[in-house]
């Protein structure tokens, strides 16, 4: 396969949302054909510049997926499938990419706060952020504030994402931020919060940097933050 051909195949498979050969994608009879993982391996073997793979194939594919979503052709399941495919590709590419490239996009530690087990929304956000090129460290559910802060500090994350779905656990968002301040770490990170019961007013009240209604708003917020 020529370089152009292989990049094109990667792009197409991002649009189809196929991580690997096992995924069936959207169009008929794709199962069994190489998916993004196999294609990226092949591209690397052929010494195609990893940066090129990222820009020419993966980002381009994701842009097209975005357009399809905007015009109503794609729905959330399609976005997630594409984002997962992108996530799978970036995992493969990570060791080859220059360090500062990753840094630029950002590193986020995400968790559902203590005593809260809801994670569907948080997982969607993780998949989408990873698909958008961020490094995502997902700590899971029922995560105490100390653990979140510790991980963010150790991994040198510039972002913290907190999810809560219960009125009784929303309070842990506030105490997490309070503890960050107490430890003098508040200025190192931006804190994004989300989950159905949270609102922009609540975010302001507890001193979070942003409230995000959904994963798209999270991506937008983070991108705006970068260009600031």
């Amino acid at each position, binding site marked *: 396969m020529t370089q152009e051909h292989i990049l094109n195949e990667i792009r197409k498979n991002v649009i189809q949302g196929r991580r690997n050969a096992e995924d069936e994608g959207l169009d008929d009879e794709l199962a069994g054909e190489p998916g993004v993982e196999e294609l990226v391996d092949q591209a690397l073997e052929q010494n195609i510049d990893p940066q090129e793979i990222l820009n020419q194939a993966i980002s381009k594919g994701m842009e097209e997926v975005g357009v399809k979503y905007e015009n109503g052709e794609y*729905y959330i399941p399609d976005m*997630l*499938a594409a984002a997962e495919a992108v996530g799978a590709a970036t995992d493969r590419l990570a060791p080859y990419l220059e360090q500062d490239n990753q840094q630029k996009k950002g590193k986020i530690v995400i968790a559902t706060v203590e005593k809260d087990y809801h994670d569907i929304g948080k*997982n969607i956000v993780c*998949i989408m952020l990873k698909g958008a090129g961020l490094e995502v460290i997902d700590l899971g559910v029922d995560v105490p504030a100390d653990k979140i802060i510790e991980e963010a500090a150790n991994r040198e994350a510039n972002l913290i994402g907190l999810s809560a779905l219960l009125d009784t656990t929303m309070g842990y968002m506030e105490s997490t931020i309070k503890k960050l301040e107490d430890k003098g770490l508040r200025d190192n990170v931006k804190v994004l919060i989300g989950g159905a019961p949270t609102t922009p007013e609540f975010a302001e009240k507890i001193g979070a940097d942003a409230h995000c209604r959904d994963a798209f708003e999270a991506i937008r917020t983070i991108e705006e933050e970068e260009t600031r």
Partner: protein
Amino acid sequence: MRKGVPVKPYPRLNQQQIELIHRASMEILNDTGIVVHGKEPLELLSSAGAEVNGSDQGGGYKVKIPETLVLDSVKKAPSEIKLGARNPENTLLLSAENPRVYYGSGSETNFFLETALKEFVPRGEDNSPGYIFPTYSSRRGCVEDLCRVAHLANQLENLDFFIRPINIQDEDITEENKDVNKFFAALDNIEKHVMAGITDLNQFNNIVKMGQIIAGGKQEFKNNPVLSFISCVTKSPLQIVEDAALRMIAANRHGIPVVISSSPQGGSTAPIEEMGMVSMINAEILAGVVLSQAAEKGAPVIYGSVPVRARMDNLHDMYGAPEFSQYNLACVQMSHYYGLPNYSAGGVSDARVPGIQATVEKSLSHLFVAQGGTNLLHYAFGLLLETQTFCPEQAILDNAHIGIIKKILEEPEIDKELKEKVISGIDKVMDSPYRIFSRSARKYMRSGNMYMGYPFEGGEEKDNTMLRVKEETERLMEQPRSCLPENIRNEVYNQVPGILPRLVKE
């Protein structure tokens, strides 16, 4: 063929109750008797073996029909009937044994309800952006309305057959030209099956001719009956009306399917208790079936049960009454017990305008009567105020709601082959990082068979449904019409006398 909704009928009545009703109906026919008007129906019934009593002093003759004659007649009538359409993909198959529910419009309201959207600003809040609310006004229907409504109905995906929901009351519509114009206005704008009653028996042959030209010939019309008839052969309680009987007989002799319909009101023209109501209407329709088979052995007839309940404040019909659904469900069972395809009603509201009352009343009967497995469920689109008004916006709402009901009634897809696929799908997700099943929803979502959400969702803290519906009405009305091909149109116009020139020459 149109898919309809194949249902496993919900048995409101158990076998014993069905048989009890049958017994009661047989006693009514054999002992009480039915009053028959008109020479021809009387002769037909008596030569078939019914006993004619007394003499007619303007009140008709009492006719007693023995059970053997009823059962014999029922056996002669077909249990499966095909109804055709301009577009053969819209063919309907009515089977008493394996019923599919088809939803249709109907029937003959006099008033057309117009919806206008107006902006209101709360008093004292002059700077407020205002609120848009629908306002309604009612006027008499005309033949142009019928054309527009048929055009709309052609596009409503859940409307399976057409009965004109608005009467044509133009000044140039007379008793003589009404039939040809109502059939023409409908058939020129809709590619689905068209049913109607006949006003003037003299027009019968003209309507048949119209059907033959549209279907492409005499034999073609037999194979693809693009139109069929409805005749209220009986008038409750227990009378056979002469001209309605003659209209039915005409259809029987031409082999054209005809609905033998009866519409008693529980509490005024029929007993209000379910057992009394159903026993009596069953007797009435069966008397019609006997007459049809006496006129033409094997004539395709449809058991038309439209039992309603009277309201107690003014003795009008009350369609939102739960008894209405009970009566109709029970009648569907009786009809299928005799192996006859059924026509019944559901989806009328007593409310004057679209809204909560209309939605509740309509949806419940749309659902329950369909669960009985009726073959043709008419009255289902746009009818308000006890079938006195038709509102196109309401028809669009009904179309959406019937879509939901059709989806609910869909047969479960559970079989051996699927089992492996299901398990391997679950295994795959369990091995994936976030264990989300949305990936496997992608194809299902695009199968065309997934409910994608309420089509008129508001999206604000106010009810915007009617706004959306109004937009949709306008959009559909502006679509190009699916008229008859020019040559056929002209042929109908030239061969069938009485069609208004303005319907052909725009």
